[in-house]
Structure formats: structure tokens, C-alpha cells
């Protein structure tokens, strides 16, 4: 207990992300220098732009979406599985939620609730497929979810174009029928006004940022405090020990994947109910993949994932200023990638170092074999 919070232990916990950040910045600097840009000026420009109120709001909004996606991925990591299919679970969840949600009008809160349920059910069902293939036919979920991503994106394109589309006069944007107002979730600008922050052009934080927060608590509770979460983690840590302890491995695969899909289905809801109010052809892609990176960076921990989501959001938003300076915005992807890769390597190094420390601690305690 006292060991847990010893200065050394805290230093070790912080060491990996710090090393990763320094390393990530270093690699990005090299990339910038190769292209004859000053790293310092670039970072300063990003910092100045990124810390403006409007940018921070965008960061939170983006972060909320990433956060939910990353929680979905992390759930399967905990179970020793890898749901790369989050991308298409998000997409199909959003598409069906938009289509069904626009069919009727309900009292405001109830309407939102129904849409959320639809989104997560569809996500769960799409995640059920790879789980079934794994349990029944032994197909690795890594490959099958990748294939289902491609299939899902073709399927959603087809459904949108041929079945769910609402033609808007004078616009060539392909979109579903807009959601009625009862399904809209207002932004939180008025709250910010109350603490003295003035309106910004892009609008305030999405109301469903709270959904992300709630899901974070839910994730943490399920994983750490419930029997199901323990079974999940045990399966991930040692499948043999888990089944000896009475966990049914097949059932666990199906439940973990479906729960992950249910989370994933919700990822785009803050945007859809807060801003776009429909599913459009220009639906943002890649959220699921970014979610994988964030889950890894956040070590499958609800708080760690939250910080990582905000970091990724910050980098992405603040890089937009660079276009004005003639630097490719995509530098942020290189930064994210470099941070991620150095982080996973650093975590592994710290883990090995910890093992050695543990052994030494035992030796000091005078414990012998």
C-alpha cells in the first residue's frame, strides 16, 4: 500500500509518458528540420493557436469522440482480444441511429435515449459477427474485423445512397433525413458564458461530452469493480487460468466484443446529435483507428485514455494553423505516431525494470525461495 505511492513508483509511472513525449517531439522536430522548418517556431505557433478558447472547445469535442472509440478498443484489449473493427461499428451505429432516429418524434430526452440505444445495438451486432467467427470457426478477430471494416464501409455507402438518402434541393450532399429537434442535444456554450467565456464562432462543447464522461466511469466500473470485468481481465491475462477458474472463454469473447461494439456505436453521437443532426456522406472516417492508438497510449485506463484523447485532439486542432505557415498539417499524424510508438516501447521497458525492482524488494525483505 505504501509501496504503491512511493516517490519511486510515481516517478516510474510518469517516466514512460514523459520519455514518449520527448521522443515524439524529437522525431517531429527532425521531420520539420528535414523540410527546412524551425521546430521551435512551429511548436510555438501550434501552442498559441491550440490554447485559444475556440481551439480548446474543438479539442474537447474531438477528444470526446476519440475517447468513446478508445474505450471500445480498450475493452477488448482487457480481454486479450483486438477489435480493429471499431471503425465500421462506429459508422454503422451512426448510420442506423440517424435513419431510425429521423423516423419519429419523441419527447426530447427519450428521443435522444432511443437513438443512443439504436446506435449501440447496431454497433454490438456488427461486433457480434467477428466474435461468432472466432468462437465457431477459429478465425482471428484481427483479420476478420479488418475485413468487416471494408465491408461495413461499402455497406453503409450502399445503404445511404440507395435506401436512407434524403435529397436536399440545391445541394449535392448525400445525407439522411435530418433528425427532428427533439433529438438535438444543445451545446454547453451558455454554461461557459456564465463563467465569463464569450461566444466563439465554432460553437460550444457538445452536450454529449457528458456521455463520454459517463462512459468513462462506466468503463472503469465494469472493468475494475464487477465480476464480469474480473472475468474479462482474467481471460486477457491468462486464458488457461481463467477457464480453470470457471470463466467460459467463448462466452467471454462474445460478450467482450459485443460490449465493445456497443461502446463503439456511440462514438459519433456527440457530433451527430450536437452538430450535424444527420448522417452524411462526408462522415468523418478514421475515428476507430485513432481510438486504437489512444487506447494503447492510455494503457486501457479510463483516466489515461482521457488524457491521451485530449492530447490527440489538441495536436490535431492546433496543427491546423500550420497551413497558414506553409507547413503540411499532417505533421500532427507523425507526432501522434511517434508518441505512440515510443510510448509502447517505453511502457515495455518500464515494465521490465519494475520486475527487477520487485525482485530486489523481495530480496531486501529477506524473503528466500
Amino acid at each position, binding site marked *: 500500500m505504501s509501496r504503491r505511492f512511493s516517490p519511486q513508483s510515481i516517478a516510474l509511472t510518469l517516466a514512460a509518458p514523459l520519455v514518449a513525449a520527448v521522443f515524439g517531439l524529437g522525431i517531429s522536430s527532425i521531420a520539420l528540420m528535414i523540410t527546412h522548418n524551425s521546430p521551435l517556431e512551429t511548436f510555438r505557433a501550434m501552442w498559441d493557436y491550440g490554447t485559444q478558447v475556440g481551439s480548446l472547445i474543438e479539442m474537447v469535442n474531438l477528444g470526446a469522440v476519440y475517447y468513446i472509440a478508445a474505450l471500445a478498443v480498450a475493452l477488448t484489449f482487457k480481454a486479450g482480444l483486438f477489435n480493429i473493427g471499431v471503425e465500421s461499428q462506429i459508422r454503422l451505429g451512426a448510420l442506423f441511429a440517424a435513419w431510425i432516429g429521423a423516423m419519429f418524434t419523441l419527447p426530447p430526452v427519450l428521443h435522444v435515449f432511443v437513438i443512443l440505444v439504436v446506435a449501440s445495438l447496431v454497433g454490438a451486432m456488427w461486433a457480434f459477427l467477428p466474435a461468432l467467427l472466432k468462437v465457431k470457426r477459429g478465425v482471428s478477430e484481427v483479420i476478420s474485423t479488418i475485413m468487416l471494416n471494408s465491408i461495413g464501409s461499402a455497406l453503409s455507402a450502399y445503404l445511404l445512397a440507395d435506401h436512407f438518402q434524403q435529397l436536399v434541393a440545391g445541394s449535392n450532399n448525400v445525407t439522411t433525413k435530418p433528425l427532428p429537434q427533439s433529438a438535438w442535444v444543445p451545446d454547453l456554450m451558455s454554461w461557459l458564458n456564465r463563467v465569463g467565456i464569450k461566444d466563439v464562432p465554432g460553437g460550444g462543447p457538445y452536450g454529449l461530452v457528458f456521455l463520454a464522461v459517463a462512459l468513462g466511469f462506466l468503463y472503469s466500473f465494469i472493468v475494475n469493480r464487477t465480476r464480469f470485468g474480473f472475468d474479462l481481465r482474467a481471460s486477457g491475462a491468462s486464458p488457461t487460468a481463467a477457464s480453470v477458474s*470457471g470463466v467460459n472463454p467463448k462466452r467471454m469473447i462474445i460478450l467482450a466484443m459485443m460490449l465493445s461494439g456497443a461502446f463503439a456505436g456511440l462514438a459519433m453521437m456527440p457530433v451527430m446529435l450536437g452538430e450535424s443532426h444527420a448522417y452524411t456522406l462526408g462522415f468523418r472516417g478514421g475515428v476507430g483507428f485513432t481510438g486504437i492508438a489512444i487506447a494503447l497510449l492510455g494503457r486501457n485506463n479510463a483516466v489515461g485514455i482521457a488524457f491521451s484523447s485530449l492530447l490527440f485532439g489538441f495536436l490535431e486542432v492546433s496543427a491546423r494553423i500550420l497551413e497558414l505557415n506553409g507547413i503540411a498539417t499532417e505533421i500532427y499524424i507523425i507526432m501522434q505516431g511517434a508518441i505512440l510508438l515510443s510510448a509502447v516501447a517505453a511502457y515495455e521497458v518500464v515494465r521490465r525494470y519494475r520486475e527487477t525492482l*520487485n525482485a530486489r524488494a523481495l530480496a531486501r525483505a529477506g524473503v528466500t525461495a
Partner: protein
Amino acid sequence: MNELAVELRHIVKKFPGVVANKDVSLKARRGEVHALVGENGAGKSTVMKVLYGMQRPDAGEILVDGQQVRFRTPAEAIAAGIGMVHQHFMLADNFTVLENVILGSEPTKHGRIDTAAARARILEMAAAYGLDIDPDAMVENLGVGERQRVEILKVLYRGAKILIFDEPTAVLVPQEVDELFAALQGLRAEGLSVIFISHKLDEVLRVADNVTVLRHGQTVAEVAADSVTAQDLAELMVGAELPTAPPRSTVPHERVVLSLQGITVGGQGTRDLLHDVSFEIRAGEVVGIAGVEGNGQHELIDAIIGLAPCQGTIVYNGTDISRFSVARRRDSGMGLIPEDRQREALLMGSALWENRMLGHQRSAPVARHGVLQLKAVKADAAVIMREYDVRAPGPETPAHALSGGNQQKFIVGREMSRQPSLLLASHPTRGVDVGAQAAIWEELRKARDAGMAILLISADLEELMAMSDVIKVMLRGRISGTFDPQRTTLEQLGVAMTVASA
């Protein structure tokens, strides 16, 4: 032929937390089979790893053919003519015998592996030392004895003059042991030195010329095999600490806790892994299962706990549980100490308090309405650690940081905490130091006297004799004999373990 082939002088090897070798010395001559004996944890394997270049000694000297040497890798030891036949075979299952043998020193011709030359050489060696093998067979299709021959050929192929055998008979059936010993005589006759690690004293006396005895990481004696008895060696090995079981003062109850009727577990081939096994365990009774490893003991546990699909009926406390899930069986009060604790009974990377929940996650005090009671669990883990003398800094310590004995004590404590009416204990004291062994025996005895039924599987016949009320012997998936430990000898058990009764 009496020159020293290898000599170890005062080897010291420390690991974090453990001194594995305090002071080990050993001399092996050419044309000699030299046995290295000692209890589990006496440091036998460590000193051999030092000799083979897998570990570097902290102090001491190694001499090969009178020259002082210092090995940094096994490759250097191999070059000096030392070979190791590992206890756990190091073979690629998906390779042929030939590929396994030549790996690392492949003969080539124009850049291509010269398979014909390799095959000829292997067959020649096989004939010379009496190691019958088909070089083109896939290793995955070989039996244990054949695999061991492949390991020996690997070593000989590299021109080893000194062969280390690490507990080679642990996995063999008696006929295979005979074949191995014949091969060892062949090696000796060719002038090679064999270092034979074992804790089975009768085998040692059968095969060895000289014996070095280790105790707690120290050489305590070097004796000629024909000048000592097994009893002498045993006393040298354990010193004064030989734990003995007091006679039991209670008697088993009449109530049957577990009843197996015609349990059969099918195998991949034609033979059943477990065939028509029936017996009962009563409250307060210890039923011991003896047998050479791999004769259905593991399948028996799996069948009872529900991991292996089986035919037959299992009645537990009056309820037919044949179709119950693993979870339901465990929750109805079956304690389990599995054979391979690190794989089956622990989450090695997780804290001890998390491990406290494993297998108990569905019932109080661990969970209520599906919610874990973390406070209660942590407190309970601390209690188990105190009561069962688990030596670790605290419940937050990860399981992998503990020694094998302490891991096992924690598992025993965990399983006992629910006061199960039945305990399935598979090799509960394997790889555990003498102190922990005595403690575990004491706990089992106390629980038995309080009315717990125990199924005890062990490879240690003395443990079985001391603990059991009745001993069943398993051979090829069947019960080949039932014995009363009070009126039976080790020899009788040995016969039942190896020869199918009429």
C-alpha cells in the same frame, strides 16, 4: 580413463532474493556416470546451467580437462564439448528429427543443406550408441522416450564429451527408463562423461558410479554409489529436516462427498485418456492417486472440475453434477490446487489480492450481486498471507515476484478460505521447499480432520503414503490397483504403476 573431465570448484550463484548455489563443488571423470542429487530447490539445475553457460557464476571456477574455462553462452560450452539434455525438451515439434539435430551446425553443400550427409551421420551415431530413431520423422509424432533420444543425438552430434542430463527420468515410463539407462552405459563405454541430475535415489544407485549430494546450495558429500544405501543418501539430502507424518487420530466419515461412476474421457487416437474410472471419496478422507505422469491424472481432475468433456456420472454431495459448468461446480464448493500453478491457478502479472479472487469471483466475500468487494478482498488476501505464511511485502505484490513455495502456499490458503467440502490437490508440494511442504501437509491434515474430502495426486510416493487413507494407482487411464498405505510397500505400488494387473 580416470582423468577428470570436468571439475567445479566452489561455485556461487545468487539471484535477486535467492542464493541458489552457496558453495558447490563437483568432480566428474571420463567414462563415468556421475549423479548429482538433492531435493527440489537444492540448486542442482542452477549449477548445471552455470556449467552449460546459461548462467554466469558469481564466484568459483570451472575446469574442463584440467583447463580453467569461462563460458558466456551455451555456444561456448558446446564448443568445449559440453552438452545438455534438458528436462523440458527443447525441440521444434513441426521439424523433423534431422532438422532438430542439425539446427545450428548444419552441413552444407553449395549453400544447400546436405541432408544426405546429415542423415548418414545421425544413423551412424544412433547405431553406435543404441539410440534407435527415424531421422525423417516429425517430432510432433514422437513419444517421450524418442524425443529424449533426439535430445541426446543433438548433443552427441555436436561432439559433446560431457553430457548433462537434467532429471531425465521424470517424464519416462519404466521401459523407457531402462532404454535410457542402457544408452547411458553405451555412452560411458565410449569414454564419455555423464552428469545425471535426479532426486530419485533408487535410479541413482542403479546407474551412477559416483554421487555428489547437494543440500541448500552446498555440496555436502561425494560418495561412491556402491558404498551407500538409498537411506544414507536420503539423510544426506534432507539433513535433519526430513518431515514425517504423525499417524492420524481421526477416522473418515461415512458420508460420501464425491462419487465417480464410469468416467471416460476420449482421446485423439483410439485409446481413451481416461477409461471407466469409478471411486468414491468420503468426508474426512484422503484418496491418493499414484502413477507415472501422463497416465490420466490430469484428465481425471479436468473431468471432475468440468474442463474435459466426459462420459459417466459424477455425483457431488448427493447431486448429479455431470452436466454442470466449471463455474457451477467450483461455486458448489470444490477447491482446486492445479498441477501447473503458474498457468492454471495464478494471474502471474496481477497483484496477490486480485489472485485472491480467481476461481472465487462469483461468491462471497469476493463479489456481491456481481460487484467486487475490493476492500474485503484485500483484507482477506492479507489474512491468507498471514495465516499461511506467504512471504511477500503485501497483497499488492504481483504473483510472479513470489517464489514457487510462497505462490503455492497462497493458492492453498485461497482454496481453503472457502472451506470447500472437496479439495482436488494435484502435486501440491511439487517444487516447494521443505518448510513450505511441511506447512502445506499440515494444512491438508487439519482440513481433513475437520471433515474435508481430499483427492491427492502426487508423484511423490512417500507423500502419498503419509497422507492418504487409500491409494489408487493409475495406469494408461485406468485404475490399476487400490492399496491401503498401512499395509503396502513402495515396491508394490511401483509394480502397479508400471504393469497392468490382470
